[in-house]
């Protein structure tokens, strides 16, 4: 076994790398030739002077707001839908419902957001609506599974006590289970929202609205200056979200 891990795995890795480069036949010679490099430099220099005119900045502000709105609404829809699916997935309504809802959650989760967005653009037309739905579908799969796990791990005693005291199913859930579950649900939802902000900014590449669509359009029209401003806006948004969530985590989670 030690021989296996000492020789076979490294040899396999090297073989895989060599095979990958051989298969792709990267045209590195053409890429690194003087011509290719000059072309790349000319292309890159277009990005060096971002377009900071007020009209364009206003469009970018609108795109940023649209991205934020897409991510927020998508995450909220996903949280609702995820909670609805999490109840059967945690085994509350029998085995058959559990298996069916788990399968549905896995399918929703396994398909990446961008593929959902491409499908939703076909189904609901171009624009932020498609992006919101795509985010909602994928995130519902993720949150549904997390919620179901949280639901299985909450202590059942409070709800049982309420049931024994004669309250209905729904009341027992609302007053017995939900209070201890709530902080976890909120934490998971916020965490996914953070991810979705990042995702929402690129969903536009397939036509689903937000900053991504602006970037795609301006690159297609060879407006490098405008594109470079959009990239800067994306960068600023990602960095802001990162530092905000790091700050919030330090303040509330470690607290």
């Amino acid at each position, binding site marked *: 076994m030690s021989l296996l891990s000492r020789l076979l*795995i490294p040899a396999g890795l090297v073989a895989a*790398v060599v095979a990958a480069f051989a*298969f*792709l036949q990267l045209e590195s010679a053409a890429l690194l030739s003087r011509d290719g490099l000059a072309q790349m430099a000319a292309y890159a220099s277009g990005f060096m002077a971002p377009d900071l005119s007020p009209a364009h900045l206003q469009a970018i502000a609108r795109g940023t707001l649209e991205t*934020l709105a897409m991510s*927020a609404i998508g995450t909220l829809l996903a949280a609702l839908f995820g909670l609805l699916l999490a109840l059967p997935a945690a085994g509350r309504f029998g085995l058959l419902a559990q298996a069916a809802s788990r399968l549905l959650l896995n399918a929703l989760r396994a398909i990446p957001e961008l*593929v959902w967005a491409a499908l939703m653009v076909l189904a609901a037309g171009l*624009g932020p609506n498609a992006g919101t739905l795509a985010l909602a579908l994928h995130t519902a799969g993720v949150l549904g599974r997390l919620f179901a796990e949280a639901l299985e791990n909450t202590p059942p005693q409070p709800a049982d006590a309420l049931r024994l005291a004669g309250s209905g199913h729904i009341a027992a859930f609302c007053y017995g289970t939900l209070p201890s579950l709530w902080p976890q649900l909120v934490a998971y939802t916020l965490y996914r929202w953070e991810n979705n902000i990042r995702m929402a900014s690129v969903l536009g590449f397939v036509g689903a*609205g937000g900053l991504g669509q602006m*970037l795609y359009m301006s690159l297609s029209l060879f407006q490098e200056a405008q594109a470079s401003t959009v990239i800067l806006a994306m960068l600023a948004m990602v960095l802001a979200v990162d530092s905000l969530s790091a700050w919030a985590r330090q303040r509330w989670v470690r607290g």
Partner: protein
Amino acid sequence: MLTLLAVALLWPGVRLSELDLGVLFDGSNADTMGTFLSAFWPPEHSGEFLGLLWQATLETLAIATAGMTLALAVAIPCALLATRVLSLSALSRGGRPAWWAQALRWPVRGLLIVLRSIPEIVWALLFVRAVGLGPTAGVLAIAITYAGMLGKVYAEIFESVDPLPARALLGAGASRLQAFLYGVLPQATGEMLSYSVYRWECAIRASVVMGFVGAGGLGQQMDLSMRMFAGGEVAAMLLTFLALVLLADLLSRMLRWRFA
């Protein structure tokens, strides 16, 4: 009161995102989607298409592997430059480098932050415009984004291991590279390898998604089939994608278990 506030905040959001669930059930839209979805079963399985699918899958794997290799080639030197462990000025200051030495590390750290903060698909879109459609753009995009992530994580791993062996070596007059190779690397290998394997798994998923902007592999074929409303082909590719992700997950878990 709280409800009112929430509605006041959400309403502009709903307006901006143009949320309209009704579109999905609108007559003609539902018809188009219905025919598209009904073509999903059975998935396309003619010999010619399966050959194409096999090629695209291999291409996806090759993009992920080649991209990771290039990323490693960039990330390791950057991590060495960015880490505090190999600081000479820290030797006499109880492990804290002088301020000017820290300032010299900042440009590298800043570069790594920029590389990883721009999503890989944006890099892919840019490279598709620069080097043309095809896998080259995908490889370069993965190489750049993952170099940023790996560089940062490696630098952190180097800093999290026991610094005393490296300090002893540096103090005894070893060069920085020697101190790294004999003082830091032996402790860091396991963690580095398992993180790299995990990233390779992520690279496979990313390379499928990047195909949608024309960077080769399974995603590009999926995009083409979707535009032609070829439901059977899309279904076959989605299934292949799921199988690929499951296999990569399995392989990476196996490798990590060996390394850890």
